[in-house]
């Protein structure tokens, strides 16, 4: 086990999130079991008060999780010095492949928690707690992910020893390897760039259509596009954004973007992309709730807000992604 300040922070953070989520789900289950909206008994009142406790617990858990996801990337980055053959986080993650699963659970939480909180916000403001069952049902699903995240993290940090010889981004993100990531890396920028541009244009157009037309179909389309855009965005980062930032035509590793030598540009790229994708998916996911009459106005108001946030966040992402192509030294070679 490597004891390292970042590792300890992650383990403490993971344990705290699990504790918050377990308490939250237990209270949630308690609420689900005895929930009776028609009653005005003291018991029902007490349950209603507890819904606030659950919201606060999950809200705090989300913030910790966002910090923890970024801290994990950076810690993997920092640990690479310990491994022979590792030049960045890819090497640290390959040193014990469980690390990739940690990345996956953290990604899942960062994508799913905001959905839960949005649902929760609607439920509380609606007046008669219309989606209370759905809400706590979902919470019980989220908790195991938090638990898996903690367990996997412990396994990951236990399993890495400084004498491990690992393979790094050189092989994973090279153009000749046999991984999916290698395929992504070898997609010529000349092909990837137009695809990215086209996808971005479609996504923004769909967002505008949903934002101003506000037809259920448009929300659905945007929600379906969102995960696709997440995929294309990450693929584009590997395929040409990283290359343009490093100004090295063959270096595709996305993790180096999180290093000081790239001015930490990976953080704004990732944060803006995830924000755009999550807030684009929310209206489509939650729109069906608008059919309940008492949620109608609320859902409509929130939808407008989320779609606006998505457009803004995606624009930020575009600026960061396109910047080095326009102003970098490698720009012309790639085009």
């Amino acid at each position: 086990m490597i004891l390292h300040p970042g590792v300890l922070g992650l383990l403490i953070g993971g344990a705290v999130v699990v504790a918050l989520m377990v308490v939250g789900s237990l209270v949630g289950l308690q609420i689900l079991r005895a929930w009776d909206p028609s009653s005005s008994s003291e018991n029902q009142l007490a349950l209603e008060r507890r819904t606030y406790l659950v919201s606060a617990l999950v809200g705090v858990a989300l913030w910790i999780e966002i910090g923890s996801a970024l801290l994990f990337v950076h810690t993997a980055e920092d640990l690479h010095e310990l491994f022979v053959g590792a030049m960045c986080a890819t090497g640290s993650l390959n040193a014990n492949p469980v690390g990739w699963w940690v990345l996956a659970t953290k990604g899942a939480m960062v994508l799913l928690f905001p959905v839960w909180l949005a649902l929760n916000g609607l439920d509380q403001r609606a007046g008669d707690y219309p989606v209370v069952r759905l809400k706590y049902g979902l919470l019980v699903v989220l908790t195991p992910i938090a638990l898996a995240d903690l367990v996997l993290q412990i396994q990951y940090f236990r399993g890495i020893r400084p004498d491990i010889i690992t393979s790094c981004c050189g092989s994973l993100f090279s153009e000749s390897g046999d991984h999916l990531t290698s395929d992504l890396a070898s997609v010529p920028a000349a092909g990837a760039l137009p695809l990215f541009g086209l996808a971005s244009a479609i996504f923004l157009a769909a967002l505008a259509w949903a934002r101003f037309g506000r037809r259920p179909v448009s929300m659905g389309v945007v929600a379906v596009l969102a995960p696709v855009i997440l995929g294309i965005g990450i693929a584009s980062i590997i395929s040409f954004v990283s290359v343009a930032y490093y100004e090295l035509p063959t270096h595709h590793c996305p993790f180096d973007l999180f290093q000081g030598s790239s001015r930490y540009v990976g953080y704004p790229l990732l944060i803006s992309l995830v924000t755009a994708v999550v807030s684009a998916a929310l209206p489509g996911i939650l729109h069906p709730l608008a059919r309940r009459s008492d949620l109608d106005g609320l859902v409509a108001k929130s939808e407008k807000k989320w779609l606006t946030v998505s457009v803004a966040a995606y624009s930020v992402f575009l600026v960061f992604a396109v910047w080095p192509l326009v102003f970098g030294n490698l720009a012309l070679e790639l085009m």
Partner: protein
Amino acid sequence: MRRHFRILDFALASLRRRRLKNWAIVAVYAFTVTIVSSVLLLTNAIRQEAALLLVGAPELTVQRVVGGRHAPIAVEVTETIATLPGVVEAQPRYWGYTYDAVTDSTITVIGAGPGSAELEMVEGRLPEHSTECAVGAGVAAMWGAEVGGEVILIDASTTGVLYEVVGTFAAPSDILTNDLVVMTGDEAALFLGLPEGWATDLAVRIANPAEVDTIATKIKRAFPDSRPITRSEVLRTYDAVFHWRSGMMLAMLSGGLIAFAILAWDKATGLSAEERKEIGILKAVGWDTGDVLELKMWEGVVISVTSLLLGLIAALIHVFLLGAPLLTPVLRGWSVLFPELHPVPHIDPYLLVSIAFLTVVPYVAATVAPSWKAAITDPDSVVRG
């Protein structure tokens, strides 16, 4: 959005109204942050010094191993190694430790050779005669010896030997030179009791870093009882050791952190009658539970940020200006002559985030439930008050 700012505003105002209580919390909180950050800043600084120390080290060090233990190596081995293609030069090194009963400390003795030329002298020069030596800052301070003075050291045959001090070292890295005495190579071998023709280890310089591993393999094949160690290996070991040490210290500290979280819990739960009434008023005039909860969480955030900043500033002063006096009792166990640290102040954003995770996360988590308890105060309790 505005709503959040208004509530933050109100949180600031209400923190200000209970100055005494809140400063007390901030004081304890900031102290915890100071201790945690001091450990991290200090170990980070030591780590960097260690890395610095290895910059001048040879690409390859060759030791001999007997029965799994480091043993002297024959000087003539250098001749064979020097003939290997890619090797620039191979030199014997003489070094070891001696215990000095007078000052109750361990001193590192090194023979002037390939590595020592890179040590920066404050004053004087490297020894040229067997009766001369150059000393590190720690040794000089202990003996009160300046250039031109004398030190008496106990050699391998427990005889006191008198040396004239001809130079003192400056330190790009305090660790390297602090407890150091440099003698001529032959004198060091004699002093340490090495048999004639034997050295502590060999330093091998290699022109092309890419060939280091190949050459190491060749040496190992030619001399099966040798152990070639590459510089990057040493670097990694240092890194691992220092990570491990700071991790150990932090693990011990986490006991303190838990105590701190409990204190925070206690402080937050122990709402005064006045505060309870105030929350009742807020509820009665139109705040809902969520609003009060947000107020309480903002208060926690403001307290955390304030304490984090104050604690960090205190830690920077403690470590970089004062030389970490609060930690030296713990650190003494590591090295008898622990250097007085004057590392270059350097703040790594990653360290800041780690510190925040180790302190703010437990605090905020501990205050969720008590804040909620405060927030569910019944609005009509006020009506009857």
